């Protein structure tokens, strides 16, 4: 009897969790390397993740070309080239006060930087002006990058109503309101 009761509690719990942790999915045009994230949720803060992703400079390119992180994340900037590189960004989403220059470091070394402001960071190297990379700093932990076909899926999003932002290099970002009740769907067609 007791055993059946416990199973029932677990089953109800599982159903309840599933109902809270929904998904947002859809497509973004143009497809690959677009970023979709849930914009700032009033009254909610999220602990910064401890994971430190790596933005590499290899073969005179930033790798990955586009990275999306949660605000508060520390990114390790690595130089894998045998030439010296520099990393700087003139602004974050146009706010020049948030521009920063990380300096120069040789092959194999890394420089950490914690991004405390959300927005789009355009990474540049002042000696190789053709190099460009992007870090999209999301205000929430709910974000995703599109696959080669432009599909995305943001998981573990609690039920609710959110503003969802889609971004792609060289395109105007677009915001849509999405109701998540188990699932939510938003397709974006971005333009220049």
């Amino acid at each position, binding site marked *: 009897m007791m055993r059946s009761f416990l199973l029932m509690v677990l089953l109800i719990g599982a159903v309840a969790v599933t109902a809270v942790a929904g998904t947002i999915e859809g497509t973004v045009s143009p497809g690959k390397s677009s970023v979709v994230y849930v914009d700032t949720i009033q009254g909610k803060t999220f602990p910064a993740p401890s994971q430190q992703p790596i933005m590499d400079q*290899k*073969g*005179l*390119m930033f790798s990955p070309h586009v990275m999306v992180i949660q605000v508060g994340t520390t990114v390790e900037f690595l130089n894998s*080239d*045998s*030439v*010296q*590189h*520099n990393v*700087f960004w003139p602004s974050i989403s146009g706010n020049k006060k948030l521009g920063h*220059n990380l*300096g*120069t*470091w*040789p092959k194999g070394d890394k420089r950490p930087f914690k991004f405390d402001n959300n927005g789009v960071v355009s990474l540049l*190297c*002042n*000696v*190789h*002006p*053709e190099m460009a990379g992007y870090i999209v700093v999301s205000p929430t932990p709910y974000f995703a990058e599109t696959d080669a076909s432009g599909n995305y899926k943001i998981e573990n999003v609690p039920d609710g109503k959110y503003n969802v932002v889609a971004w792609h290099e060289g395109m105007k970002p677009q915001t849509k309101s999405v109701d998540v009740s188990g699932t939510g769907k938003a397709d974006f067609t971005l333009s220049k």
Partner: protein
Amino acid sequence: MGRLSSRAGSTFLQFLLLMGTLIIPSRESAAIPAFSRLYGTSCSTCHIDFPKLNDFGKAFKDAGFKFPKDDESMLKIPPVMLGAPANAELWPKAIWPGTIPGIPPIGLRMNNYFQYTGTSSGKFASLTPAGTLPPFVPTTDFETGLFSIFTAGNFGSDIAFWVDDDISVSGANASGELGDGYLKFVNIGRLIKLPKNSLNFRVGQFELELPFTQARSIWISPYDIYSQANIGAMNSLVPLQQFVNNQFQMADVGKGVEFSGGLHTGGYNYSIAFIDQNTSGIGQDQNPGSPYVPQATGSNLGGVGVASDANFKDIYASFNYRFNLEHDKESRKAIQAAGPTGPRDHTYLNFGTYYFYGRSVQRLLGAASDGTAALVTAREPFYRVGGNMTFNYRCCLQFNALYMYGHDNNLLPIDAAGDLIPLQNLSTAVPVGFIHSTPATFSGGFADVEWLAYPWMMVLMRYDGVNSTSDRINGLQTNPSFTGAPFNAPFASTRNRFTPGVQFLIHANIKASFEYQFRPSQSVVIATNPVTGLPIALNPFHTNTAVAGLEWVY
């Protein structure tokens, strides 16, 4: 009048020549867009204000037009293999197999100029001989510069190549000519176990390893001292006579071989070159050789070995040592310093010296000792020697200076009686030999400051000075009514020039340049001051010139 006397009276032609050189820019090579394509990188990887190289560009060139390390991983367009790498196992110490670039490494360059010359420049028209029309010097003039094609790269196994050719100069297709065209075997010292980078070998046609390159100078106007030919005093109105007519200029390209070593990014570097002698200025196209000598190449312009005017090969040697003044030890070892806001060149002090030795040839129809007609040849040894210095402060400020002393032995023709033949009588006299006389010398140099105010703006200032007694004498007026006074501050003697300039990189491959060339006042009319009785200069004029240039490479 003999041919030398005719030259002595060519002040007017010298003026025209000067005017011409104001318009015609120096022969230049430029950045290599082909490398941008191969590596997918911007010009600024190797250049500060193209075609000036930064330290990485120098290292790239020293390595044989490739990245000093991990070159293969940097290439966005992989090379085409001319044999599988495993073939090297057959002949492990040979250089086969090689590669060719994945795309034809071709770059193109075009420039246009606009020149403004002061209206007073026409006042030298009084030099025009009676009965001839004076020249017209326009105040403003548009001029196309060079349209050049260049290709360079690496064939693998440290064999580098470079060819640049001016397809068109000043809009005239026929004026184009080959600039540099060479093959360079980098680091061949490894074959005889010499230290790395201590020995390279280059063969072909190339600019000598000058302390400051003329071909890759960022200045619109050439360095005056590099274009100084040593023409001895040939004015029959003055007692000093010099049978020197050496057309050699340091900026000339040489055909031959070069041994070099060291790096241009730190420590020593040297060059020893052996090149064809051609001091009489006869081009290959005017020297088709003898119909009795087979032309090995089949060229209709002379084939192999007939463009030189002697068997002697000129010798050039240079040595430089660069002291690295970078504070940060780690950065000092790297090609570029790790500045707080990005890589930059090291702070350094470079000292160098150079020496050129050749023999200037002049031939005359004369007689042998037995009286039979013979070609008599004066082989007059000459040398150019000097020193250079550079102080570079980090990314943005550089001071350069160069001094040169030129010396040509002077062999004067004598007749059968052993008497000197006046040069103006050469066409009628019968020379049998030569005796030594006063050498023809000159000296001078330049100093400049180059300040990279912004990554897209270079501010420049240069001083050029050339002091040649012979030039001054040759500049004397030959009109009998002119009593012997030279230009009061003659362009033809001590040539002083201050040249401020500014350049803007509109794009990394498009540059707008501006130079203003200040020259001292000159005058060709000398009168006697009625009060003091001293000579005074009338009709003074300047040949100050403003030049604006627009050039692009792609």
